[in-house]
């Protein structure tokens, strides 16, 4: 299938140096740093340290929406982006929707339908600022409000935007530390390129919080003088906060609705260092591969790049590594480089998206943003970044984002061609040809490994929580002592150990790590580590921080540790999408297999019991919580040699020639992965499933029913509608009775599906053989996913 071109038609941004694209660009033109003394919360240890705090009244600007500060920042940016794109998104109000449709008919313009509009955001801390207060209240004799936990997860911001705009396409969130915003944009591009969505609101957000301030402080990475990227005297980062959202559209969709094209997203590429939990690979190997992959995807060579918006955090290690990687890519022909971090601070999950907006604005204004704080060239880096704002002819701009765990993501934005071409009419949903559906394929599943709960048991709740016992599904002893070397284990969190044990159990005997990609989804992620860090913070008034806990608290430490273990240097992704985190991981890993940038994909999900969540669940009467980790190995369709993205004259083994995909007898095949939003209309849901899998050949529908009456009724109603459509009763199975409720439960369900098609287990209602199983998952936040496993 011809890959679709992707254009940017709208921008929204809020940060320390301004609210809105116009204000931000004015600050950049003036070269005024956005750093100022911290005032959002008080800190004993870092009183009045320079940060990129948003000066605007975020609550007032966000208006009538509920959510964390992070959610509100994201909403403010998304609202601007949608308005600037002229997208008629009016939410769920039917009358407003009808009027939009009518207007577009009179204007003879097509408007993308709501199920073709997605939201993909990157975030690192999510609602941590609120969760910190919750922890403080628990530790003091005062009432803690459990309600704030509903905004804790990184996915909450994307949920909010989807809800407000009525976007019914895939709604995803990624949490890969400092590259999350860029990875979200890359994933959004995949959705559009692969025809799974027409329009995606993509970006990132993060608010300042005590965890990251004290965490980076404990790593001795905060520069008291404010960050000075690439400067010889640089001494660390300045933390920041903000959000940025881009409206990405398929070029023909933008043309059909008459949208103004601001830039083209011409390339994106990801690669993992597989080196260390926090330190970058010193020579910039992973960064270089990510840059090359982005250029290859854009069909450009290094000489085409007219400006690099560097990751440039201001730490000794990052800037040195990035400088080396840039020299390796560009040689002596280095284009102008600058880091715009001093305008915003390091905004973590938002950073990649903010840089994407700056890159597009640089193309629009045909000017180079400066690098405040830079004074003298570091003789080791030998890069003098742009000192002052100046006009320049820019055609292609490269935007770098590198995160903890060696998560490198690079985006390339290009000046749009003068004429975008004819505006074709969009096919209406009814006209779509089923064989064109982008989610049907047949990838061999060559390995499955898991750490499963041993059965229902009870756990003791301890202070600071109210004491009591709660029923849970816990993993107990899961074999880490036997399966992981002591030296490897000593610094890993329990959840990392669970994930690593599952990953080791799924590995085929032979594989080529350089071409392996890893995607591990998670709901609550490393909350236990973050909570330990924050509890310690409150108890000791910020003395004696726990640096190890902090580095373990990033959600992508799971996928990162798996990559280090394997040496897997392909894409490293951490979707945090509530109950469909596993399916999102599977989807992301398969996109890499399909693109040829990997020939082995490890996809899985992991979650562990968290005391706050258990206590909240008890209060709210939620189903019995559980935990577990499951990782699956998938390979390319043919299993034969496959050419892997080759680029330039690199001597890097990673980028050369063709490699052998592992030849292992498959245990089953993955036939489809599809992500979307639950509509509440049973007939529409059944049709969505029937569009993805041939009902005549579907033997079992495996659902995430968990004993919660409202959810179970939804699953039952969809199964019934599906039966009516198929003209026979569809056998329905469930799996949460064995693993409890947790965001990664569908990964357990996936292993049940594999065992069903292999005939290793049978359902009571099953009459014949089971050759094809559809795993259907709904989240309470209205995400849905479907995976089809076949014999």
């Amino acid at each position, binding site marked *: 299938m011809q890959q679709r071109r992707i254009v940017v038609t709208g921008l929204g941004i809020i940060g320390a140096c301004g609210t809105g694209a116009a204000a931000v660009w004015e600050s950049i033109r003036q070269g005024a740093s956005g750093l100022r003394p911290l005032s959002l919360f008080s800190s004993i240890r870092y009183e009045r340290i320079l940060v990129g705090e948003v000066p605007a009244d975020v609550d007032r600007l966000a208006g009538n929406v509920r959510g964390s500060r992070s959610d509100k920042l994201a909403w403010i940016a998304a609202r601007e982006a949608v308005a600037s794109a002229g997208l008629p998104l009016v939410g769920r109000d039917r009358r407003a929707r009808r009027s939009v449709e009518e207007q577009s008919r009179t204007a003879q313009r097509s408007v993308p339908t709501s199920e073709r509009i997605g939201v993909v955001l990157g975030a690192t801390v999510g609602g941590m600022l609120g969760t910190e207060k919750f922890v403080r209240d628990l530790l003091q004799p005062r009432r803690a409000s459990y309600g704030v936990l509903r905004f804790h997860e990184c996915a909450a911001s994307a949920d909010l935007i989807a809800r407000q705009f009525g976007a019914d396409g895939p709604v995803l969130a990624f949490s890969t530390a400092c590259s999350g915003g860029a990875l979200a944009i890359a994933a959004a591009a995949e959705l559009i390129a692969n025809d799974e969505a027409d329009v995606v609101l993509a970006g990132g957000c993060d608010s300042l919080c005590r965890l990251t301030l004290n965490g980076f402080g*404990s*790593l*001795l*990475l905060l520069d*008291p003088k404010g960050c000075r990227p690439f400067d010889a005297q640089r*001494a660390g980062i300045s933390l920041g906060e903000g959000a940025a959202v881009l409206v990405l559209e398929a070029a023909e969709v933008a043309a059909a609705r008459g949208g103004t094209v601001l830039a083209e997203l011409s390339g994106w590429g990801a690669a993992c260092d597989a080196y*260390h*939990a*926090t*330190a970058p690979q010193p020579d910039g190997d992973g960064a270089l591969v990510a840059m090359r992959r982005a250029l290859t995807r854009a069909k450009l060579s290094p000489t085409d790049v007219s400006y690099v918006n560097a990751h440039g955090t201001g730490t*000794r290690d990052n800037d040195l590594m990035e400088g080396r990687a840039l020299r390796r890519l560009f040689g002596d022909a280095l284009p102008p480089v600058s880091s715009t971090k001093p305008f915003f601070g390091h905004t973590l999950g938002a950073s990649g998206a903010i840089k994407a907006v700056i890159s597009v604005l640089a193309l629009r204004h045909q000017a180079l943003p400066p690098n405040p704080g830079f004074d003298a060239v570091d003789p080791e880096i030998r890069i003098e970044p742009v000192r002052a704002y100046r006009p320049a002819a820019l055609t292609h701009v490269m935007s770098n984002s590198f995160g903890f765990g060696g998560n490198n993501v690079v985006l390339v934005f290009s000046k749009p061609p003068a004429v975008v071409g004819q505006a074709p009419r969009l096919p209406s949903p009814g006209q779509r040809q089923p064989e064109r559906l982008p989610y049907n394929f047949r990838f061999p599943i060559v390995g499955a490994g898991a750490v499963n709960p041993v059965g229902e048991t009870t756990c003791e709740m301890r202070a600071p929580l109210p004491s009591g016992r709660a029923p849970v599904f816990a993993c107990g002893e899961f074999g880490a002592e036997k399966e992981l070397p*002591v*030296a490897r284990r*000593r*610094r890993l969190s329990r959840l990392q150990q669970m994930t690593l044990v599952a990953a080791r159990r799924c590995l085929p005997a032979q594989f080529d790590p350089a071409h392996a990609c890893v995607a591990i989804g998670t709901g609550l992620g490393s909350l236990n580590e973050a909570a330990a860090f924050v509890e310690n913070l409150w108890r000791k008034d910020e*003395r*004696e*921080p*726990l*640096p*190890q806990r902090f*580095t373990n608290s990033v959600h992508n430490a799971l996928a990162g540790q798996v990559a280090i273990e394997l040496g897997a240097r392909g894409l490293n992704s951490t979707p945090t999408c509530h109950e469909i985190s596993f399916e999102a991981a599977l989807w992301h890993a398969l996109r890499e297999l399909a693109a040829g940038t990997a020939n082995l994909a490890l996809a899985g999900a992991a979650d562990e019991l968290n005391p706050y969540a258990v206590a909240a669940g008890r209060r709210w009467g939620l189903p019995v919580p559980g935990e577990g980790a499951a990782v699956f190995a998938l390979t390319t369709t043919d299993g034969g040699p496959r050419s892997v993205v080759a680029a330039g004259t690199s001597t890097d083994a990673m980028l050369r020639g063709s490699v052998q995909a592992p030849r292992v007898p498959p245990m089953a095949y993955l036939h489809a992965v599809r992500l979307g939003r639950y509509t509440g209309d049973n007939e529409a849901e059944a049709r969505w499933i029937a569009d993805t899998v041939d009902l005549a050949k579907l033997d079992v529908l495996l659902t995430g029913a968990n004993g919660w009456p409202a959810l179970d009724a939804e699953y039952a109603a969809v199964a019934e509608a599906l039966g009516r459509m198929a003209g026979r009763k569809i056998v329905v199975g469930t799996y949460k009775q064995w693993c409890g409720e947790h965001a990664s439960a569908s990964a357990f369900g996936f292993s049940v599906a594999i065992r069903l098609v292999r005939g290793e287990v049978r359902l009571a209602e099953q009459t014949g053989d089971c050759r094809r199983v559809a795993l259907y998952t709904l989240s309470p936040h209205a995400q849905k996913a479907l995976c089809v496993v076949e014999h």
Partner: protein
Amino acid sequence: MQQLIEELKQKIVAALNLQEVKPADIKEDEPLFGAGLGLDSIDALELVVLLERDYGIIVKEQEVARKAFTSVRALATFIEEHRGQCSKGA
């Protein structure tokens, strides 16, 4: 000094969860990082916390930590020099 060195060995093993290492295995002049015990930058930061907790020495710059932690003996010397001072490298 020798007493401080022995004390430090025990504390390092406990703080860094070095299950396979006995305090006596750590040689005074052996490099703590890279080769030797195979510790890395995150372990160094855990030792920074140990200095703050047990000796009241606050290290604020990576460069200071890098020099102080070359070996157990260097660490002991660093502690002797800075004990009682409230901060270093501010």
